[in-house]
């Protein structure tokens, strides 16, 4: 097959249509060229000048395709297509006005961008990509729990959900208090929204405190109680002798109260006497969606210049980031002080996932490693049923769906904020975060498809699609942070004050050509060189020492294990006010 202009097509990718078109580039003038549409992407290349202008947009990124202007519209380039993307940009194309020239391309785009709305398959199922490593093996629940030190005398593994009978949005392997029987679990499930009972997310090896996650209790207007649920939470508390179990309800207090009207609610003081309830004031998916929309308005296509900071403030995006981060800090701080916690919101798959995974990232340096981060995403987000399909709307034409929300993006932003504040603590770099977000939408890999494990199983995602991690792990050098200094078990508390949060310019404004030159790559490059020099130097030193014979052997150990001897200096920040 003829190659697609100058990019190689993916195995399984097929050309559908190509067409002369004008790309109305918001940063330059209109650009004449050719657009190629395949079953995976939209690719545009200009033909009118030697300086190449290209677009390479996976169709999965498209949230909306509209016709712009009509056959009788006046003015240059007034007839064409407008494409709204999920990744902070819009694309506009103009076509010749004669002969319904856009009809075929519009129909094809509409069909291939939203395959699920047209009874077709997502590209991930058509892709024939092969990688050495099978990324589906990155996360093995049992291995991960064993790494944490579970099961043990306080916590046990249960397979009660092996065929998703207890809870259809939970994974098959769950960790619960040792003393809780299978019968207990079933009874608790009746009192938790969508049967999402409190289960262990993370176990603190030293003080045995745990992070558990669940959905809201079904208290309702009448203030129902459930003895089994109360006793079950007490089992969580007792497991390591926590005096008062802290329940973090991610929602604002008012929202929690309002949820009673629809049968939900929160743990009342009377019913849960050994627990303390803390509301974290994080808003719901609708608020976050609107916030990001406002952010897009001020950065694309033109960046608001005159009142940049107050415009940014009026989007509240950073404020939401701050609330999520400071919530996670509270969770991490409580756990590292030895108290077990329960985290939930309404259903326990949005804000809850943000809080538990960020707290785990702060508490456990393993998740800050390249592999560990993949495990964290697989575990807290994918296996515990963050509704990726609904939140992103993969392959679905319904762009105004109220279920869509950038919750996962917000989480990745929080991670980015942490990497900014602790530049040596993470083994991966910003590029990995961007790649993850790009493939969150692209539908090229199966990783972020569907809402939960049970649906993924029934669609045989593992068998029929490639994991994003197969791709990422096939060339890790791109994503490695050269400044990474592995450290042991110190807790990382970012400063969640507005003064220390930044807009992630290199993600949100990356389409603007004026922003691009600011990326930090020269520094990274320089570091790589320095690291290489350091290695050389150490080698030399070692040789010198060796030739210097034995008495200085202690020095040798010092110099040959630099990382062990270098300080964990960034990790000394022990407390942070919120």
């Amino acid at each position: 097959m003829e190659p697609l202009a100058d990019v190689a097509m993916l195995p399984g990718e097929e050309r559908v249509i190509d067409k002369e078109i004008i790309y109305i580039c918001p940063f330059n003038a209109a650009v004449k060229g050719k657009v190629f549409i395949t079953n995976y992407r939209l690719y545009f290349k200009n033909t009118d000048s030697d300086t190449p202008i290209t677009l390479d947009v996976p169709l999965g990124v498209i949230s909306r395709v509209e016709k712009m202007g009509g056959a009788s519209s006046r003015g240059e380039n007034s007839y064409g297509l407008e494409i709204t993307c999920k990744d902070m940009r819009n694309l506009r194309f103009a076509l010749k006005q004669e002969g319904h020239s856009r009809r075929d391309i519009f129909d094809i785009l509409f069909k291939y961008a939203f395959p699920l709305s047209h009874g077709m398959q997502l590209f991930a199922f058509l892709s024939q990509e092969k990688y050495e490593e099978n990324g589906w093996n990155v996360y093995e629940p049992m291995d991960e729990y064993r790494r944490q030190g579970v099961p043990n005398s306080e916590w046990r593994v249960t397979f009660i959900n092996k065929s998703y009978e207890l809870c259809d949005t939970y994974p098959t392997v769950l960790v619960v208090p040792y003393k809780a029987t299978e019968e207990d679990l079933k009874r608790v499930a009746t009192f938790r929204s969508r049967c999402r009972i409190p289960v262990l997310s993370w176990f603190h090896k030293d003080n045995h405190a745990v992070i558990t996650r669940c959905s809201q209790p079904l208290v309702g207007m009448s203030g129902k109680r459930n003895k089994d649920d109360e006793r079950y939470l007490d089992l969580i508390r007792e497991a390591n002798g926590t005096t008062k179990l802290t329940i973090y309800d991610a929602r604002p207090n008012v929202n929690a109260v309002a949820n009673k009207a629809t049968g939900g609610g929160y743990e009342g003081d009377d019913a849960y006497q050994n627990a303390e309830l803390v509301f974290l004031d994080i808003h719901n998916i609708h608020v976050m969606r609107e916030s990001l929309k406002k952010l897009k308005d001020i950065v694309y296509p033109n960046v608001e210049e005159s009142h940049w900071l107050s415009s940014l403030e009026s989007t509240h995006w950073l404020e939401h980031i701050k609330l999520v981060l400071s919530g996670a800090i509270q969770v991490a701080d409580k756990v590292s002080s030895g108290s077990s916690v329960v985290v939930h919101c309404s259903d326990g798959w949005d804000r809850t996932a943000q809080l538990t995974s960020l707290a785990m990232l702060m508490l456990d340096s393993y998740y800050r490693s390249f592999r560990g981060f993949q495990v964290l995403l697989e575990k807290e987000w994918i296996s515990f049923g963050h509704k990726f399909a609904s939140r992103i709307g993969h392959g679905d034409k319904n762009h105004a769906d109220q279920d869509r929300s950038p919750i996962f993006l917000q989480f990745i932003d929080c991670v980015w904020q942490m990497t900014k504040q602790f530049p040596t603590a993470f083994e991966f770099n910003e590029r990995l975060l961007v790649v993850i977000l790009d493939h969150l939408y692209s539908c090229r890999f199966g990783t972020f498809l569907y809402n939960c494990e049970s649906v993924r199983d029934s669609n045989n995602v593992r068998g029929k699609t490639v994991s994003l991690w197969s791709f990422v792990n096939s060339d890790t050098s791109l994503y490695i942070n050269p400044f990474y200094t592995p450290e042991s078990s110190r807790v990382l508390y970012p400063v969640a004050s507005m003064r220390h949060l930044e807009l992630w310019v290199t993600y949100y404004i990356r389409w603007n050509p004026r922003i691009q030159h600011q990326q930090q790559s020269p520094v990274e490059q320089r570091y790589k060189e320095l690291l290489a020099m350091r290695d050389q130097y150490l080698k030399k030193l070692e040789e010198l020492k060796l030739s210097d014979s034995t008495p200085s052997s202690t020095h040798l150990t010092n110099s040959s294990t630099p990382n062990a001897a270098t300080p964990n200096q960034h990790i000394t920040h022990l407390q942070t006010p919120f």
Partner: protein
Amino acid sequence: MELSEHIKTANVEDVTLKRPFHPALRGTLCVTSHHLLFSDRKDEASWQLLILLKNIDAVEKRAVGSSGTITIKCKDLLVLQLEIPGMEECLNIASSIEALSSLESVTEMYPFFYRPSHLTLHGPWGLSSTEQYYKQTERLWDRWRVSTVNSDYSVCPSYTSAVIVPREVDDDKLIRSARFRQGGRFPVLSYCHHRNGMVIMRSSQPLTGANKKRCKEDELLLQAVIDGSELGYVIDLRSAQQAQQARMTGGGFESKSCYSHWKRIHRHHERGKVVQESLIKLVEACNDPSHSVDRWLSKLENSKWLSHVHSALSTAGLVVECVERDGHSVLVHGSEGTDNTLLVSTLAQLILDPASRTVTGFLCLLEREWIQAGHPFQQRCAHSAYSHARLKLECPSFLLLLDCVWQVWRQFPLALEFSEALLLRLAQEAYASNYGTFLCNSEQEKCAAGVKENTHCLFQSLSKPDIEEQYLNPLYEPNDLAIWPSVHPQSLQLWTGLFLRWTEYAQNMVEAREEVWSIVKEHREKAGPDRSNNTPSTHCDTLTPFENLMDELTIL
């Protein structure tokens, strides 16, 4: 009156010191002629805090029962609290500090008493002189000369005794041009571009006045600058309207009809009080103790500080564009030519000239463009962000410069040889210093006060061959190109290293750094002498993550 007569109570025991993010300490407080000294009581490992009284911007007292609390707000933005038993002692201490921190006589200031054993007072003062600069810049020899017309400071009281001017303009013409310029600041050479020989000149505004006066010699002087090439640019740091208005008060601008080969471009820059008030608002916002999320970004924006940074950098970019891209010479001035003019000419050189990006090159640049060019440091830095005194001539022009340099440093992490720590040090020294460098308002005043004979020079001490490594950027890679900073609002950031240096985050970084440092030392002791030979031991004093990172690489 002797300085010591201001001291009503020299010593107080049992004082409690409170600093942000530190546990309270009890100890003894002493007031000396120039310092406030607090020493922790513990016998061993005694801890001392020594603050130059000149660093103190505001003193606030409050009575609590029989004791009093003094809040000390420093020009380096630190805020301290002292709880002093005994109301009388408290009031005495406060009034002593107030009196001694606002001394106006230069020769009574601490630099005249600072005599560290490792420095001597003999030898030349400063890094370079106009004559030396001229000698080093071969490109100038042909068309330019050093004039000593100002050797007794009578032509321009705020200039140095020697200035560089076009060879074909004689001293008489200079004198006449000086009479036609505010404060006598006639156009002099600031920089000659190594690539194309184009120059940056600076001056004050011409005194055209309402009657559109002309000065033939001033016109000839500028004509000689461009020497036959068609065009030069006057970058006027005021809006066209402001420049027009200046004529009503005797000032003015270079009109097209009189300076036919010069094209005027106006760029509005805030000055004086407005900039000072920005600083005050910014610091207020940074110190707001409520950690509330709301309004921080608005407050930051409303302070307008970053918009001053933006103006300075973008006008400097304009100058660079004229000189480097279009190949034209430029004259920069505003009104007095002592603040924004220097800010813009300095930044333009930093962007254009690789030589000004080394430690010594940068300090030389500051010496030429700020000290020798007569930025009135004493007036501008009399008070900082906290003072309750009525503002007079204060304006943080120099701080603004350092902030702009920091922005460049942040955007080009490899291009500057110095580190953020050097910028922070300079920010501190400009307001309160052991050295004489930032004393007085001009060279003339320095001479009259005997500054060069009786004080040490900061720049010399900083640029010694054994410069402290904390002031070096370990990532430095010399780069011959112009480094154009992006001036989009998204690219400019708050200089947290300075403005949030006493907050929790900075504190975390300081603690982290201290830990690193102690481990480095321990490491060295263990390793013995042969290690230290090989080991580059960069101790970074900055608060930036990147610097800290480098520690890890270099302390091995």
